[in-house]
Each structure stands twice: as C-alpha cells, then as structure tokens.
C-alpha cells in the first residue's frame, strides 16, 4: 500500500521535473515579455509596453505579415498540389508507388541547409531574383511532402469500391471524388494543411537562403536583431508565435477527436 503510494508520488515528481525542463525556458521568455525592466535577471514590474512597441514597429509588423502570408499561401498551394499528387500516387502500381514515396521522403530527411543552399543556387542559376516569390516557392516545395504524408494514409483507408459505387450510381468521376472520396480524406487534408502551415511558420534556414535582401520573415528578423542586441519586444513576438502554435495544436487535436467520435 505505502510502497505503491510512494511510487505514485515519485512518478508525479518525475513528471513535474520533465515538464519544468521542457517549459521553463519558454515560461522565462513569456515572463520577460511582460517585464518593465530591460534586464534579463531583474523583475521591474508588469507591462504590455513591449507588445505595444511590437505593433508600432513597421519592420516587425511587415515581417509578421510576410510570415503569415507565406505560411498561408504555401500551405494552401502545397495542400492542393500534395492532395492531387497523393491521389495519383495512390493509383499507381506497387513498385512505382514505393519508389515515388521514397523520393518524397528525401526532402524531409535532407538537412535544411542543403535544401536551402540548393534552392538558392537553383534560383540564381535560372536568373530568378531572390525575394518574396522565391521564399514562397521554396516553402511550397518543402511543404508538399508533408501534405502527401498526411493524405496518403487516409486515401489508403478509403475503399476504392465506394468511389466505384458513386460512378455506378451515375456520378461523373469529378462528382464522385468530391461527394465520396473527399469527405473521407478531408481530415488528412486539414492536418496536412496545418502541418504545412506550422512547418512554414517554423522555418528559418531555407527562408534565410532564399529570401534575398529587403524582405524578412519573423525568424530571419529575429536572427538579425539578435546580432544587434536583443530587444524585449522580440520576447513579446516570440510569445505570440508560441501562443499561436499552441492554439493551432489544440484546435487540430480537438478537431481530430471530434472526427474520431463521429465515427
């Protein structure tokens, strides 16, 4: 009795330690973003000033806008391309299917720095000036494999025979796809989109190499600011990013649970 109680308490303590180690740095960041003092080791009182400054700074706001637009557009385009590709690949014979999926996995395993440099070299070699569009193209490129990876399992679960049944009942292939296959793979498409969105939000290295001069996303901006000495408004910015990702994660988890319950 006592031993099992002790074991349980020890287990709880261990879990608390794990959580502290994981989240203490982030908690520090969040706390410092509300700190009046610029010092990193003295609490000078609570303030929203840094958040205010953040929204007043045009460089930060434009970087923020760029990040969101690129994340949204690249995720959307990658989701469309990736879903169409997944349908095509799913209908391939076994051998080419395995081959294509293996090729699909390479960009994900490849070091970001290699992807970044090779994309940059590619753009320069073809005379494409670096800027917003090259960041967007790069993000679409590295997002497609993630979409494929989350749509493929859903497609595999979807029985081909339900698609055939829709054709049999008079639906054209397009109608059959949207009425029967699409609802089935929709959760996979959504999670693919969210994954792509966060991947794009998260990216620094590839963006850094393909962005060119005069344009920044949040991550590249933070990087250049750090070299000049960090400003507390960047803590505020990081807090907002962390909060956004956290909310996205919770939303997607709730959505998936709901879908599971409906089944």
């Amino acid at each position, binding site marked *: 009795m006592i031993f099992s109680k002790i074991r349980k308490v020890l287990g709880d303590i261990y879990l608390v330690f794990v959580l502290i180690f994981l989240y203490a740095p982030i908690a520090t960041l969040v706390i410092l973003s509300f700190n009046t003092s610029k010092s990193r080791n003295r609490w000078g009182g609570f303030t929203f000033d840094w958040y205010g400054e953040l929204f007043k700074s045009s460089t930060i706001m434009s970087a923020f806008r760029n990040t969101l637009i690129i994340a949204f557009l690249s995720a959307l385009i990658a989701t469309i391309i990736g879903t169409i590709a997944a349908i095509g690949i799913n209908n391939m014979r076994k051998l080419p299917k395995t081959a294509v999926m293996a090729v699909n996995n390479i960009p994900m395993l490849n070091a970001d720095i290699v992807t970044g440099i090779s994309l940059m070299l590619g753009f320069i070699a073809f005379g494409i000036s670096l800027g917003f569009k090259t960041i967007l193209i790069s993000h679409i490129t590295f997002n497609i494999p993630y979409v494929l990876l989350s749509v493929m399992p859903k497609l595999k679960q979807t029985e081909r*025979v*339900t698609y*055939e*049944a*829709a*054709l*049999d009942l008079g639906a054209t292939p397009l109608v059959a796809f949207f009425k*029967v296959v699409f*609802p089935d793979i929709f959760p996979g498409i959504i999670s693919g989109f969210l994954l792509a969105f966060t991947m794009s939000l998260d990216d620094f290295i590839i963006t850094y190499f393909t962005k060119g001069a005069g344009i920044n996303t949040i991550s590249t901006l933070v990087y250049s600011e750090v070299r000049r000495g960090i400003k507390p408004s960047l803590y505020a910015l990081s807090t907002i990013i962390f909060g956004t990702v956290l909310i996205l994660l919770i939303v997607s988890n709730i959505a998936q649970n709901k879908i599971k319950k409906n089944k």
Partner: protein
Amino acid sequence: MSTSLIDLEHISKSFDGEIVLDDLNLSIKENSFVTLLGPSGCGKTTTLRIIGGFVQADSGRVIFDGKDISNIPPNKRNLNTVFQKYALFPHMSIAENIAFGLKIKNKPKAYIDDKIKYALKLVNLKGFENRNINLLSGGQQQRIAIARAIVNEPKVLLLDEPLGALDLKLRQDMQYELIRLKNELGITFIYVTHDQEEALTMSDTIVVMNQGYIQQMGSPEQIYNEPENAFVADFIGESNIIAATMVQDRLVEIFGAKFACVDEGFGNNKPVDVVIRPEDIDLVEPDKGTLVGRVTHLIFKGVHYEMEVTTPNGYEWLVHSTDMFHVGKEVGISVDPFDIQIMNKPESEDEEAVGVNE
C-alpha cells in the same frame, strides 16, 4: 437470340500478361436470374466488372439493349451494382445513401422521398431513413446497398458476391429475399458467386466458369444432372467421376462391368468419363448389383448416411443413402440408366477449359 438484353462478344482481358478472360461469348436474356459461378480467379468478377464498365476489355464488344456500350463509362450505363463489401458512403445517412443516384439525376425531392420509402419497404427496413450506416449489421447494410441500387430503376442489377460476408443463416434468408426482389421488380439479375448452393437455389441460368472460359451454361437442373465435363461435375456437388469405356450406344463399361445408360452418339469402344452422383447409387444385395464392393467407411450425416464402398480394383465409391450398411459388409452397386452421365474425355488441357457454346 432476339430477347437477349446483354451480349458479350469475343471478350478477352488480361492483367499484367495473365489471361483472365479468353474470347468469352455470353448472351443474357431479359428478366432472367443469371449466375456466374466458379472458383476464385475464374474470371467471373472480371466479367461482371466489364458489364458494369469498371474494367475495359482488351478486345470484344459489350452489347446492351442493342447498343454497343463497350466504351461508355459506368456512370452512363443503365445498370447498377451491389458490391461485395456493400460500399455504402460512411459519411451519409441511410436516406442520403439511397438518394445518391436520384440526386445526381436531379429528381424532385418529393419523388426521391417516395422512392426512399418504397425501397426501404422493399428490403424490409421500413423507418430506417435516419439511422447511422455504421451501426447496421452486415445483412442490413447489404439490404441498404440493394435499395440504393434499385431506386435508380436499372434494367439490370449486377451483384458481386453480395452475400459473401454474411453468416450462413443470414445468407440463406437473403437468398429467398433476392428471389422475391427479382420477381417483384421484374428486372434482370446477374449474380456472381463461388457458392454452388447459392447458384442452384436462385438462378434461372447458371454459367459455370473456370480459367477464363465458360465451362457450361444451363438451368440449375441441367448443370447438376448433366454436367458436360469433369470440372463442372466436380465443382457442383459431390460426385464419382470415373474413367470408363463407351461400348456402344446406351451401354458403358465401368471397371469391367457393363452398365445400361441413356446416352448415344459417343461411338463404339470410346474412352469417356462417367459421372454418378452419390445419391443416385443404390446399394443392394451382392448378387443383384452390377458391381460388388465392401463398405469401408460410414458416417451419419443427419439427412442420410455417407458411405464409402470399395470395389476390388481399389476405387472408393461415394454413396449417399438413407439405408445403412455396416462397415465390412459386402454390397452390390446398382445405378439406374438415367442416373449415369457420360462425358467426353478432354483431349488436351486446353480443351478441358474450353467452353461449349450454345
């Protein structure tokens, strides 16, 4: 031929170089219940899928109602399919499933609602409109699949082993249900199965297939009583298939004993195969039988006794009889002339598979 609704002409199909159907010809009459019967891999499902439009034949034509539909996609064909795995749409209610085909055709809502009610009544699932598909039993799901197909008023209903996933009792109930549906709807059913009992119970016409060829086509009685070759005889029910010699018309020699039969035209002293159903063998006193053997095996099967009678040459005859003979007893074997079915011996393996065109 004038009343045929579907004609398959010289259909050939191979997958990855493997021939599945080879020059298949089949004509299906309007209002009939035709069953394609055969072991797995015999080409029966491929034949059905070619009729349904899901598979394109490599060569040959599909004629439906006088028109060549070989190149028409499945959504433009006036026939509907009931799939083996039901293939219901999981994210739709039962009513939405049934209404699917009608909504595509833009039928008015009142018409669709009437049709749903009618179809559910027809498959004995009145009032199931708003239930969840996933909470239905296998038998109920299959009924919904049938309802979903028949509301479109197809001329032909294709059924691809629809009872394959159901348990025995439910399967038997559904067999009667399908016969009733067929009679009430007055449309053509093309049914695919590997279950010979299902085929015999429901069909007007059975098409026995093996290795991409039609082996025999005929009524259930013809298929059972007059199999044209050893494959059909063996596949449909249990039987004794024995190599024998046709001495002359209406006389066949089996293991040195002469049996009277009713078949003619095989020629004199010609080697043939003989099929005798186990229930057609009469066991009699040894001196009254055409052949004499000894009972070597006895099992009580409920309706009848199953016995093995071994003749001196070592052949074990399978016998079904309501009379019991103990193991070791010497018995005579007697067969009525019309119970002996004579078949030509296949001259090559290819011929064994080649169908007999009617």
